[in-house]
């Protein structure tokens, strides 16, 4: 067992390094002083960070990403929490079918979803508009919110709601003072997760953008296709910093692994 155990541990470490390495090399590379990106970097400078400020398309794309991610997360949380509450609390017929339906956008390839929405939106004059973009992003965020809020509700004690009602609180007060505070962690992690899903998305966005409206991952994607530019390293590092900050919060509330666990597909 000992040699096998060691071998297993060694492969496991190699595997973990394999998962992390593409992210780990990006940050050092962004501090290069050369005119091309490399790992290990040559010299040290912040020039590729200050150069982001000279590229208005990146700044604009960043604020677009932020704006859409906040709005998509808001609507996904709104629709998703109501839906998850309904499924968890009421004896609705066809419950499991409804749950599968609400998480179905996860099983359809994002490429196919993007194509379907582009073709559908074009005659409706929604293609390339903010509204179209937002709708597409809400669709891809909803399944995660449903899943997280359902998990959050799985241990929920409905006697607390009953107690509130017996003590004379109206249903709205019961929801506001009892239900909501108890499922708040699940809602917050659902929202953060939805935010990151939207903020990171490329595939669906590719079909929803217009020349005037682009997001940060799209800018990175097209810059990478055109040229090998160190500015991609610094912009990518900014994306990593934002993601890490949100991951830390998510991990504190919910546990990042649990979000993906359960093997649903």
């Amino acid at each position, binding site marked *: 067992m000992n040699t096998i155990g060691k071998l297993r*541990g060694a492969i496991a470490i190699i595997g973990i390094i394999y998962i992390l390495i593409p992210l780990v090399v990006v940050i050092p590379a962004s501090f290069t002083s050369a005119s091309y990106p490399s790992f290990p970097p040559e010299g040290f400078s912040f020039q590729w960070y200050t150069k982001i400020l000279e590229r208005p398309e990146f700044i604009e794309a960043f604020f677009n990403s932020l704006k859409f991610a906040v709005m998509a997360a808001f609507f996904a949380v709104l629709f998703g929490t109501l839906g998850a509450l309904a499924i968890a609390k009421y004896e609705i017929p066809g419950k499991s079918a409804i749950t599968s339906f609400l998480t179905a956008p996860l099983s359809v390839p994002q490429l196919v979803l993007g194509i379907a929405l582009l073709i559908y939106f074009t005659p409706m004059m929604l293609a390339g508009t903010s509204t179209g973009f937002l709708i597409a992003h809400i669709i891809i965020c909803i399944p995660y919110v449903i899943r997280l809020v359902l998990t959050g509700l799985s241990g929920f004690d409905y006697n607390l709601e009953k107690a509130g009602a017996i003590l004379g609180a109206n249903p709205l007060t019961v929801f506001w003072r009892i239900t909501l505070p108890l499922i708040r962690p699940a809602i917050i992690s659902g929202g953060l997760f939805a935010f990151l899903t939207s903020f*990171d998305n490329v595939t669906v966005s590719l079909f929803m953008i217009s020349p005037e409206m682009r997001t940060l991952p799209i800018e990175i994607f097209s810059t990478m296709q055109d040229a090998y530019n160190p500015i991609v390293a610094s912009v990518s590092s900014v994306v990593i910093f934002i993601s890490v900050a949100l991951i830390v919060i998510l991990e504190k509330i919910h546990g990042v692994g649990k979000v993906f666990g359960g093997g649903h597909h």
Partner: protein
Amino acid sequence: MEPVRSHADQETSPKITTEPPKKQKKMKKRRSWVPGLLLLVPILLFLFGFFVVPMLYILYLSFISTENLSGADAVYSLQNYITLFTDSYYLNSLWITVKISIYSVIVALLLGYPIALTMAKSSARVRAIITLLIASPLLVSIVVRNFGWYLLLLPNGTINSFLLNIGIINKPLNLLFSELGVVIGLSNAYLPFMVLAIVTSLYNIDPSLEKASAILGASPMRSFFSITLPLSLPGIISGSVLVFSLSMSAYVTPALMGGANVPVMPVVVYDQINNLLHWTFGSALSYVLLATTLLSVFIFTRVFEKSKFKEVFR
């Protein structure tokens, strides 16, 4: 959704008040989920209008063989699908996609199983740290991860420079813009899913089984192959199916890591829709991609489930 709706109609119809008392109790029980239904209305309508209808719309378009989409002179036929399955370009593309997805599953399995096994045998604390390390990259945009691979794999990248410096090779290897590059990108992106799927099934194995087999004199190798491995098969299957279907339909990674050299189906579909504006043909391609993915998942699951039972009850 249909029966649900008809119940809602019943609720508002005046017929309810005239129900005989015998049925009253049943009605009351039924009524209790009506508020729940109201909560579901926004999300159901939203998904119906912006997910179900668009998906059905492109299915409909895939049967139109003229490029004119608007009504009257549209010709309905299977022409798009026939072209797709008779033209060697598209068949070849489908084959490359399946091949690359299988390679990605194999790489993810070979690296993922030892990680999952290590997690299952570690303390809760170590397990939590590993989970965080492997799941976090899933929350960073795929383009950023691909850029990391650019730094490592390009002809003047880290790996080639290193190999050139120590003299193992005398000209850079084509690691990027090749099938190898795409397999590296995809297996890297989806390896965490494989680990999480396998580790879930490993947690469910009763530890006393391994103890029992050790007491009965089985070597650790024997215990692994006759207990741990067969019992973790459900995790291996669901992980493999997940990685396979994600790899089949991935666009960004093949586009960046393979480029024009590796024309996988998603890249071909994207080209048809966004560059050539062949919407009806592109719709047919989309559905073939969707169907191939679902079908392979179905076959894969069936084949493996059979062998699982054989294994367990041997």
